[in-house]
């Protein structure tokens, strides 16, 4: 039986990877993927918690979190598309008309 | 106002009516159909001065005892007349509409009520008059509100409210550099008074609950109750701290060196009426607040900080006078002279003698007549000669004898010539100062010479010295045109002020008696006790 803490540890690693990616990569799509990784880290925790506490809530949370992630990606891609259509870039650094 | 008849509450009336009329006069023309709006705009000047005159009349009647039959010399310090039944404004945090007057505030109220119509008169030709005159009415409300409010929240509201019409006056009718001046004026004084606000808030949450007030907070802003409450702030250090916070607000308004630099800029740029009110009434708010709040509520701290008061007063007085001498701009000079004179007020208070405090009170009043005259003169000078530089022209005595006469009278009054209003105050303060501090009096006394020097110098270089009996030396700004003398309305306003200067110089007892009573009251009722606990001795 895998301990909840192991799963949580994996979550920490995933989260760190995601966060690191989020602020090192400049391609918006990649950042989106990093966000997904972070969300999945959270999902792992929920799952671990649910199994640890034998609480059904955790499963529900996971399910909903996945749904949220999906919505987020949908919206994100739509926004990136519209960005691309005007500025022809999806680089986080190049889109900087708005600043200061 | 509840079941109370307004007629029984004249202070609320004089405070709120100008605000209402002013706002209506500004708003109605936008709402009404065009034809009637135009009619309204045409008469708005007359309505404004009518209201202002009516208020001046009411206050005068109040003073004469014709209304409410009040014996002004019989108000004990801490007691107020014309108090209304407190009307709840924000009962949840203990804010009420509570007004009242005593010998400290009444001369200021009267002064405000008188100065408004005079300043209207002096700027009778103001551009965009349909905005200008209502704005002055709003200004009147704000100023009166400061002096009548007995609720610190309302006091603070009015205190800050004075900034807005003045800001607009400077901004819309000011001189070349009005933007900078208006901003500086607003931000500078606002910042200082926010410190004061913190002080007020500390006082606020030390108040005991009053039934029916402060359902949310359990405290109230009632100044009378605060004064009555024993030992409002128990911690001595905190008390001192609050006192200093309050002082920051008051000293900046006064203004005292080193927080005075907003004043010259504001004055130079402000329109004449604005300058008159600024110097005449707004500066007095600082001293008024100090006496009304700092001194009455925190006598011990006041005693503790007397050396600070002396320092501030001395520096303002002496340094202000020297800076004055280095000015070349007429309005700047007069502005710095205000700084210098306000220093005397602190000195008067620092004497801790009823005489000195009465002198300070009278100084507030006298300066309130004289400095508007000075600014009216400076404004007229600007108006007719298009310059404010001292020495850019000579011999106005020839071209504008009335202007020259008023200028001379005003300056003479300001340098403390006997039988003009300023002298009484100066003498009273100096006598008291000698009693308490002895030879230190030489410093303020010798400053009187400096004061005389800068006024005489300016007089020599503006009124006199044209080298030709038939022609003055005209400034370049006139482009060869011949300047005119004062217009009738400028003259009327200045004559009134000049007459008042002489009247209160010859018969100071008109206001002196009640001021003296009040000062004795505050010393005997509050300060002596504090002096004894602090074991104060000069």
């Amino acid at each position, binding site marked *: 039986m895998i301990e909840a803490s192991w799963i949580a540890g994996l979550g920490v690693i995933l989260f760190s990877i995601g966060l690191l990616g*989020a*602020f090192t990569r400049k391609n*918006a799509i990649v*950042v989106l993927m990093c966000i997904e990784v972070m969300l999945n880290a959270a999902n792992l925790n929920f799952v671990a918690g649910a199994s640890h506490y034998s609480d059904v809530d955790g499963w529900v949370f996971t399910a909903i979190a996945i749904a949220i992630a999906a919505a987020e990606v949908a919206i994100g891609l739509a926004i990136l598309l519209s960005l691309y259509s005007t500025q022809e870039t999806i680089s*986080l*650094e190049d*889109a*900087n008309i708005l*600043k*200061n | 106002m509840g079941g109370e008849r307004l007629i029984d509450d004249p202070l609320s009336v004089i405070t709120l009516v100008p605000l209402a009329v002013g706002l209506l006069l500004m708003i109605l023309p936008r709402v009404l159909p065009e034809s009637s709006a135009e009619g309204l705009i045409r008469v708005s000047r007359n309505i404004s001065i009518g209201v202002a005159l009516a208020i001046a009349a009411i206050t005068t009647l109040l003073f004469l005892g014709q209304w409410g039959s009040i014996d002004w010399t019989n108000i004990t310090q801490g007691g107020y007349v014309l108090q209304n039944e407190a009307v709840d404004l924000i009962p949840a945090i203990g804010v009420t509409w509570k007004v009242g007057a005593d010998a400290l505030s009444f001369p200021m109220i009267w002064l405000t009520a008188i100065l408004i119509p005079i300043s209207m008169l002096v700027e009778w030709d103001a551009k965009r008059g349909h905005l200008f005159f209502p704005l002055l009415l709003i200004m009147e409300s704000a100023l009166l509100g400061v002096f009548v409010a007995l609720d610190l929240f309302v006091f603070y509201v009015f205190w800050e409210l004075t900034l807005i019409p003045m800001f607009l006056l400077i901004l819309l009718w000011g001189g070349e550099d009005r933007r900078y001046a208006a901003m*500086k004026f607003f931000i500078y004084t606002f910042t200082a008074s926010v410190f004061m606000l913190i002080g007020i808030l500390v006082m606020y949450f030390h108040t005991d609950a009053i039934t029916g007030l402060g359902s949310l907070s359990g405290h109230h802003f009632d100044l009378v109750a605060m004064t009555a409450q024993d030992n409002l702030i128990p911690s001595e250090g905190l008390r001192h701290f609050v006192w200093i916070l309050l002082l920051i607000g008051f000293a900046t308004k006064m203004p005292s*060196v080193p927080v005075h*630099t907003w004043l010259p800029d504001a004055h130079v740029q402000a329109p004449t009426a604005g300058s008159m009110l600024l110097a005449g009434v707004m500066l007095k708010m600082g001293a008024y607040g100090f006496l009304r709040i700092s001194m009455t509520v925190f006598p011990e701290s006041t005693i503790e900080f007397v050396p600070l008061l002396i320092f501030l007063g001395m520096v303002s007085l002496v*340094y202000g006078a*020297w*800076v004055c*001498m*280095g000015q070349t701009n007429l309005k700047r000079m007069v502005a710095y002279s205000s700084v210098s004179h306000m220093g005397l007020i602190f000195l008067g208070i620092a004497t801790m*003698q*009823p*005489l000195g405090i009465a002198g300070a009170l009278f100084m507030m009043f006298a300066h309130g007549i004289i400095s508007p005259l000075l600014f009216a003169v400076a404004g007229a000078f600007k108006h007719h000669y298009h310059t404010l530089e001292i020495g850019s022209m000579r*011999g106005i*005595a*020839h071209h504008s004898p009335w202007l020259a006469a008023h200028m001379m009278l005003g300056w003479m009054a300001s340098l403390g010539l006997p*039988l003009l209003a300023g*002298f009484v105050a100066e*003498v*009273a303060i100096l*006598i008291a100062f*000698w*009693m308490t501090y002895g030879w230190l*009096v030489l410093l303020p*006394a010798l400053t*009187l*010479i*400096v004061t005389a*020097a*800068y006024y*005489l*110098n300016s*007089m*020599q270089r503006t009124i*006199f*010295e*044209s*080298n*030709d*009996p038939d022609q*003055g030396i005209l400034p370049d700004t006139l482009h060869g045109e011949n300047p005119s003398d004062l217009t009738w309305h400028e003259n009327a306003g200045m004559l009134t002020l000049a007459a008042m200067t002489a009247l209160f110089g010859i018969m*100071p*007892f008109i206001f*002196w*008696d009640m001021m*003296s009573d009040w000062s*004795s009251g505050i010393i*005997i009722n509050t300060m*002596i006790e504090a002096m*004894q606990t602090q*074991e104060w*001795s000069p």
Partner: protein
Amino acid sequence: MSDTKNEWELLVPIIPFLLVAPSLKFLAGWESVEAAFLIVVVPLLIFPAILVLGQLYNGNETWKNRYKEGGIFALGSLALSLSIAIWILYDYIVGSAHFEAHSVVDPFSWLTFDVIEQTGAQWEVSTGFTDIGVGVWIDSVTLMLLFVATFLCFLICWFSLGYMNTDKINEDSNHRFYGEFVLFAIGMFGMVLADNFLWLFIFWEIMGLCSYLLIGFYYWKDSAAYAAKKAFLTTRVGDVFLMVGLLILYDIYGSLDFAVIFDDPSTGVGGMMVESSELFWALLMLFIGAVGKSAQFPLHVWLPDAMEGPTPVSALIHAATMVNAGLYLVVRMVPFVDIHVNGVAGLENFALIVAWIGGITAFMAAAIAFVQNDIKKVLAYSTMSQLAYIFTGLGAGLLFLNIGEHHAGYFVIGASMFHLFNHAMAKGMLFMASGSVIHEVHHAHDHVRELSDKYSTNEGDDHGDFDPQDMRIMGGLAARMPVTATAMMLGSMSIIGIPLIGGFWSKEGIIAETWAACLHEEPLMFVPALLVLATAGMTGFYMTRMWLMTFAGPPKSEIVGHVHEATPWIKEPLIILSVITALGGFALALFGAVEYLGDPEYDHLSFHGILYTLEHAFLPEDTNLRLVGWTTILIAMVIGPVMASRIHGGRLIDGVEASPLVSWLVDLSSRFGSQDVSELADSQLAEALQRRLYFDDLYEITLAKTAIPLAGLSAWFDKNVIDGVIKQIESNSASGSVQVRRITTGSARDYILMAAVGMLSIFALLWGVSA
């Protein structure tokens, strides 16, 4: 004066004014002292009226010709004051039942207040300090000065009607002159009548204001504007100290009322003994005020410049009345030092200071007067010098009183007051006479120029550097202006101290008693005593010089030939004053005025007094003093005038005869021949005297080196340091803002990075707190 009507008709409007005093007495049954306040109040109502009417009716013919641009009203109100003053004087002399030694009328609480005092650790309200009042105080000193003031104001106003209103340059601005003139009269009368030191000071300042305004009457002249400022500022320095003196006095006595203070000057407020050291400082401060007002060293610099004002102003303010205010103040100090009554002992040093200042000024001013060529400047320095005499006398008197010699003290103070009277009359007249000369010379110059203009095309040439006051263009005027010359001669004689003429009696008394003080009491009095003695001779020199330069010798320019005697308006006051100077002094001396003026308790005029005075002037018991007396007469009468004659004397040109009243003097002067003094005139000493002993330069330089840079520095400091801090905050905020905004790079990656940094900081902080 264009109209040829009978000029007396113009005086009709003043009749109602003259009727006031009699009708009050006989119809309303008033006492004279009850009417005293009218002396001040009536002019107080008249002066604004003149100013306002003058402004309204400026240029109106009736106003100009009929009312003399307000002069008639001024004259009327002054006549009223004079009549009441005479009424009071009469009552006083006949010893009316309502007169005590001094009389206080209508005390009125002007300001009431409380003062708290510390007794032990307790603070309580003092019962001693309650108010400052106002009222009328009349005693012998008051009366003397009141009479001098009202009388001279009236006469000089009269004179002005002839002097001011005939000058083109004054046209349409005479109402200003008369208004300020009357205001000045208010100040003078009020100061004399005031019953406390504060009101004395108040009116004192009013006079200062009027002095300022009137000196600057010709405001367009740079020199006049400058002189006015100088006068006001210099006296202001003294006034400030005077005010400090008042503060000290008030602190000592708890009142500034004469009645309270003089009741017992040794007891202060609350029954405390007055310490002489404290009182010394109070009196010294008051004295500095007096020094400023009376133009004594070292605050003397303003008086000569003050001659920029119209001549009547010089006559009234700067010779006859205002400058006496300082003396009046010192006389008022008598009760403080009079240990015979309730005075405070130990004030000898103060008396010495007064005497020394007097002596120094007397000598210095006389010396400077030697080299002045401006007729009014000579008179100005003479005024300074004569006032200094009085100060010296007062100093000696105070000294006597303070060491208990009250008889001698009263005598010399009486002599000083008497000198004040004589000097006021004589100097007023001298100035009027000089005014007459100037006026006529000026007119003659205009006339000459008109003639010459016919032949030259030199247009636009104004008066140029022509100066109608310069004695170097005069000479020989004795023939052209007999009345003026006579008046001037009599006045000069009085000032010099020629025996039997006015000033002689008083000057003699002062010098003799100063020496007495030196010889018998206080060796330190030697310097002032010597100086006043020397000054007597110098007075003889410069007064004679002035007269001779103006009236004797051949004419020094063609203008003299066109000079005529002045108008009646000018002549009449001269004649009146000549008579008073010549005879009045003598008469008053006979009446024992010397003693009576000094001693407020002296209530009977006695024959004894007359004899005593006459005797004392010539023949004091003390041989040393007798020697001094004769020396004085010798050098004043003989040495000074003779030396002057040797330099400036001379006959008139042939074929011209002066009036017999003065011709003897002209003749006499010519007998001493002429001496060439050009070498002396070029000497460094003469140069120094010309430059007024460099005092003015010293003050100017000091001011330019200190005050002006200090003012500039203050202004700079305020602008760049105090306001600079604010500006620095402004600019720092702005640059800080730009810096902060730069962090918002626009790159979302940076935003995320920043958020991550923030997150880590939060961890660190939370960790820190929980660990």
